[in-house]
């Protein structure tokens, strides 16, 4: 064999194999389509397939990895009780490790291979930002993103994307107005995740807290767990109150680093980073301390807010309902804020799907949410409209006591502008439906 012959063979063989592999694989994908008689992807006569990206491993996984299983538990409950107009929900969630580049890969897989009807509750601000433009360019409903970033409220650029939880600007304003009233004249420091999650929170806080009181703004990136320099800076600037917009792992790191530096300011933590059960577990695991109550002792006194009913209020009809579903479908998970979150957002999706009609299409789901949704499990109403894609509009303030969030005041609502006031919301919350399923 001559050398040129060999080189040529090498090139031909290589490329031929490449095309053959692709062609051979294609035969297995032909069965993945929607099926049934309806042409909407992901909808058959008996099923609705939806997908999500979730951090099941990695830095954001502790706590957040319970959300999708909890949502799935609620869907299983609905499926067992008649489904949505007879259709069962199939919920396929893939692990993106809170890494935006993996988010893009897994969501493309969900869209192209699994042909999902919608992306539901994709978790994380930096992660979901990587896929929202693609989902909108293909008009795939991108509903109830698990992030309070204001970026989801972009009805012209992202018309098919909807937020759900209290957005970070509103949350920042509610926390900020509380701090402004209760810590007058104290030095305030911010600790936040340096992306749109933390930046939105800081925006809301700065709307309410007088500039003269803010002495330090320190940030972290999720890939770097060494936050001692930032904490030392907060201490050096003499911050007496530290407000943290962080994921649970970084709230725990913040608390432990403060402990190490003998620095004990009042901690105020946004809802997403303050679930007491998750924090207690993380604190014990990071500090390698197995003493009973170690974690709870450290979370004692953290001020935070809540937009879902408090887990401690066992007489609340929503908590009773979700506890029952939890005990049936996901008894191994702790019944904590993440499980409550997962079930609540799943309930909202079922509300929207019922409203989208007996023969749902992607368009009918979008217009159903644009028409507004009735207040469900959240303590404040939704603001959904054709021009507003934020979700829950308010929260109550609370403090962590003995490992549980205890509300300290009534529900506060506000808007996402710099000047809109924070006001009390007094309409009482409706009880959960007896069936546990929203009425069509």
């Amino acid at each position, binding site marked *: *064999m001559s*050398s*040129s012959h*060999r*080189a*040529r063979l*090498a*090139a*031909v*063989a*290589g*490329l*031929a*194999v*490449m*095309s053959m*592999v*692709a*062609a051979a*694989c*294609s035969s297995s*994908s*032909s069965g*993945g389509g929607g099926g049934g008689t309806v042409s909407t992807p992901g909808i058959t006569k008996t099923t609705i397939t939806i997908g999500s990206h979730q951090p*099941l*491993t990695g830095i954001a*996984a502790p706590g957040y*990895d319970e959300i999708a299983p909890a949502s799935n538990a609620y869907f299983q409950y609905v499926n067992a009780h008649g489904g949505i107009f007879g259709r069962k929900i199939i919920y396929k969630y893939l*692990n993106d*490790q809170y*890494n*935006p*580049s*993996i988010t*893009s*890969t897994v969501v*493309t*897989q969900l869209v*192209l*291979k699994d042909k999902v009807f919608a992306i539901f509750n994709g978790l994380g*601000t*930096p992660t979901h*930002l*990587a*896929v929202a*433009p*693609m989902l909108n*360019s293909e008009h795939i409903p991108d509903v109830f993103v698990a992030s309070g970033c204001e970026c989801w409220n972009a009805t012209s650029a992202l018309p098919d994307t909807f937020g759900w939880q209290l957005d970070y600007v509103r949350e920042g304003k509610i926390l900020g107005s509380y701090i402004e009233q209760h810590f007058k004249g104290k030095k305030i420091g911010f600790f936040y995740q*340096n*992306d*749109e999650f933390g930046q939105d929170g800081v925006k809301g806080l700065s709307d309410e807290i007088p500039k003269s009181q803010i002495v330090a703004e320190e940030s972290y*990136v*999720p*890939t*770097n767990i060494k936050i001692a320099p930032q904490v030392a800076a907060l201490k050096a600037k003499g911050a007496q109150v530290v407000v943290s917009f962080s994921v649970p792992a970084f709230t725990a790191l913040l608390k432990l680093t403060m402990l190490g530096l003998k620095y004990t300011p009042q901690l105020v933590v946004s809802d997403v980073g303050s679930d007491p059960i998750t924090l207690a577990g993380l604190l014990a695991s990071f500090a390698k301390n197995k003493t009973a109550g170690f974690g709870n002792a450290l979370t004692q006194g953290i001020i935070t807010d809540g937009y879902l009913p408090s887990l401690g209020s066992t007489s609340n009809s929503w908590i009773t309902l979700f506890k029952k579903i939890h005990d049936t479908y996901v008894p191994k998970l702790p019944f904590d804020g993440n499980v409550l979150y997962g079930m609540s957002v799943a309930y909202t999706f079922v509300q929207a799907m019922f409203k989208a009609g007996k023969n749902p299409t992607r368009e009918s789901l979008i217009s159903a949410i644009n028409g507004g949704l009735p207040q469900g499990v959240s303590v404040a109403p939704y603001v959904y409209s054709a021009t507003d894609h934020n979700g829950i509009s308010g929260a109550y303030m609370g403090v962590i006591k003995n490992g549980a969030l205890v509300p300290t005041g009534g529900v506060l609502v506000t808007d996402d502008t710099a000047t809109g006031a924070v006001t009390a919301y007094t309409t009482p919350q409706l009880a959960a439906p007896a069936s546990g399923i929203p009425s069509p």
Partner: protein
Amino acid sequence: MARSPDPRPAGRLGGLAAPTLVRHLGAAVLAGVVLLIGSNTIGDYRDYQLANVAVYVVAVAGLTLLIGLSGQISIGNGAFMAVGGYLAALLLADLKWPLIAILLAATAGAAVVGAIFGVAAARLRGPYLAGATLMLAVALPSVATRFQSVLGGDQGLGFFIGVPGFLGPNVSPYRWLAWVTCGAALVTMVLLANLIRSRTGRSWRAVRDDEIAAALAGLNVARLQILAFVVSAACAGLGGTLLAMWNQSVSPGLFSLTLSIQLLTAAVLGGLGSLTGAVLGSAIVVLPYTYLQNQAISLGMTTATGSNVPILAYGAVLIVVMLAFPAGIQGLLAWMVRASRVRQAVRWLTGPLARRASPGPSVHSAASGHPDQRSAPAAEPQEKGTT
């Protein structure tokens, strides 16, 4: 270890270039037609996967040339991909350049960085070079978090290029993606195949096999080694741009250390120094990943465990391949072809003809020095720099 695609010393220096180029171009056009037909029939998801393989082919081809031909190791080619990817994202966002200009500029940009690093690399040998490139792969992505306002931090920058208008609405974005990436892969393969068979390619092999002998023969060892780094970095830069296009964004997580290791794995699995091996290795690293992960999870493993199964499998396969078939899959295939009874049968049938035409042993075995009775493809000369 690496089998040079051209084990015979080529006797002629000139005159051969044009026919070689024509042959390689012919093969590329043929493969291009197959890929074009294929991409139109396999559906969006397979197009997306095909594009992913093509992206890896571009980067792995450059790496396999660096390690297999010039004998320098790099664990850090993911860093050069990051240079290309980020440069492309900045050019798209700030200057709105057309795609072809972005691809060329990002390739050139990575080549420049490769040249600078190559100067340092040419002074390092073996594990020291490996360590230096590893450092590059670990350190470079964090530049993006340091200069967050420009490079977007952990969140990264968007890189969204739609289907050009003239193709009409019938071409899906994923088919377009497959066309661009496969086109780039074919161009890269043709250029590298010619480079490997050129005077430069032969000089690289001389340097790889014995630096002192090569220097005594009048070759500028340092310059050749830097050139290999430049070519490898250029391929990585192009691959990084295509990866950004495939991922629709660039972020530090896209160019993690895992990516650099995957490139190395693909090059070793395929067979160092072999372009065919680069294609095979890329396909093996890319395609079974999702499948393995889904299988593991459907077998009842938790997602946390299942997510790590593909990495475990690659590690195991890499160890087995290095132990049993150091020349990689391409070497294994070549050995199987040589050793197979099919070939013996063909020889037996054609033998009398060949003997009648030219008495004596066959041209191939005499010239290549690889008798068919070889037991395994392991008897390669030990190389420097690939420890």
